[in-house]
């Protein structure tokens, strides 16, 4: 049996006296579209940061496709692409170079990368802006560029931290379509979002974190049952 795309095992993350993540364990299988939900400060972003190497782990373990993120960090990081909520692009590079340089940091360069960058810019409708810096793009374009950058090194798992925060309905639907296509083509996706209908619409399974603890982990339809995700979410997170 192949290793899980993501395996989080008894993860604890403390900042001084404050425990941000308190013994969380879950697995995401390869090819899944997985939702990680919770109110602000619940521990979602900390879990993601620990997964991609932006936070130290206090105790527990995380592995990506069988590679431990601490022991086998180089191999683990090659498996994952992160699309953060904020726009943290390099302001000195045009958007085509943002993609090419990001691939470079992953140890990939050459004509194949340039071709992939052009392909992604085309696919995300950014080709006409390829020579511009990101500050010249609209909010929707920046969102799409975030996704393109996360995909440039062909990761097997993509983590999307609130990918549709602050975007209009039309763009949200467009992003949903892109994400579905990506998942259908075999990329495992982990999504955090405050839009519950988004998780309901896209995710195969959903985990809910509250005050650093995992309070639910079910297939989306099973979790919702006859009610709505909003009702379940409020019930679990108001306890």
């Amino acid at each position, binding site marked *: 049996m192949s290793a899980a795309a993501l395996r989080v095992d008894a993860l604890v993350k403390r900042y001084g006296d404050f425990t941000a993540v308190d013994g969380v364990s879950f697995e995401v299988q390869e090819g899944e579209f997985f939702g990680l939900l919770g109110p602000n400060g619940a521990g979602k972003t900390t879990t993601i940061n620990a997964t991609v190497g*932006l936070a*130290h782990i206090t105790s527990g373990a995380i592995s990506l496709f069988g590679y431990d993120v601490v022991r086998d960090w180089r191999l683990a990081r090659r498996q994952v692409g992160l699309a*953060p909520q904020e726009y*943290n692009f*390099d*302001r*000195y590079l045009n958007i085509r170079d943002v993609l090419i*340089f990001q691939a470079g940091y992953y*140890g*990939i360069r050459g004509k194949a990368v340039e071709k992939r960058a052009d392909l992604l810019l085309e696919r995300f409708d950014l080709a006409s802006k390829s020579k511009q810096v990101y500050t010249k793009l609209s909010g929707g374009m920046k969102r799409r560029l975030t996704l393109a950058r996360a995909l440039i090194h062909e990761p097997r798992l993509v983590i999307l931290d609130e990918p549709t925060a602050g975007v209009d309905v039309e763009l949200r639907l467009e992003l949903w379509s892109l994400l579905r296509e990506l998942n259908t083509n075999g990329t495992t996706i982990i999504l955090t979002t405050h839009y519950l209908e988004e998780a309901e619409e896209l995710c195969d399974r959903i985990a809910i974190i509250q005050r650093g603890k995992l309070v639910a982990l079910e297939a989306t339809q099973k979790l919702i049952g006859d009610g709505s995700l909003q009702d379940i979410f409020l019930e679990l997170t108001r306890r």
Partner: protein
Amino acid sequence: MIVNTVGFETLVKREIVRTFSIINQVIWPPVIQTLLYVFIFGFGLGSRINTVNGVPYAQFLIPGLIMLQLIDQTYSESSSSVFQGRFMNSIQELLIAPLSAIEIVLGYVVAGVVRAIFIALLITGLGAVLVHAYPTNWSLYVLTIVLVAVLFSSLGIIFGLMAEKFDHIAVLTTFFITPLVFVGGVFTSLQLLPRVLQTVSLGNPMFYMIDVFRHSYIGTGDVSLGLSLAVVTALAAGAFGAALRMVAVGFKLRM
């Protein structure tokens, strides 16, 4: 040591792209300031001074002026690049990639060395054209630039990581680097100072950087070449080690 060679080279290239996209902040100011120093001190005041350490004053001045600009620009660029990366969070692009601490630190430092050599060559060209000052020992010339660039790129990384706002970066420049460089032998030989100031100057690290670089131009300095080189090498190694340690533990980078 370096496993992700492409990643390391990409970071060096990125830093050089950054330098040339802000060329009016990084490259031209040292050249123009050097021109002004040469005209005012070299040609103006220098015409009233016979020779210093056996060479015309304007020629004595050039290696000190190169060091002055090199130190200032290398530190400023490295610190502002790291701080800006933290401030804008764009440094996360490096932190989530399979790049080790040594690859990241060397990326910034090697870019600092390239930048320093470029600036030094421009000012060296000016010195050659204006006052006929040429390096006589090119190996020592390059070695000194590399060591000084390693030292101040590393200090730039350290302060870029420690700073909470841009103003903090300027603390080292305003209160330490600029005063110490100015009294470190840029404009005068140690031998021309009163005895008490000569002794004080020996505690100034900038003095050794300027002195060793002057050796590469006029073949002589105020203290032995071995001592100056040893001090500069030790400082560069210490600063590089400290910067590497800070990045390795994720100081203000990884939560």
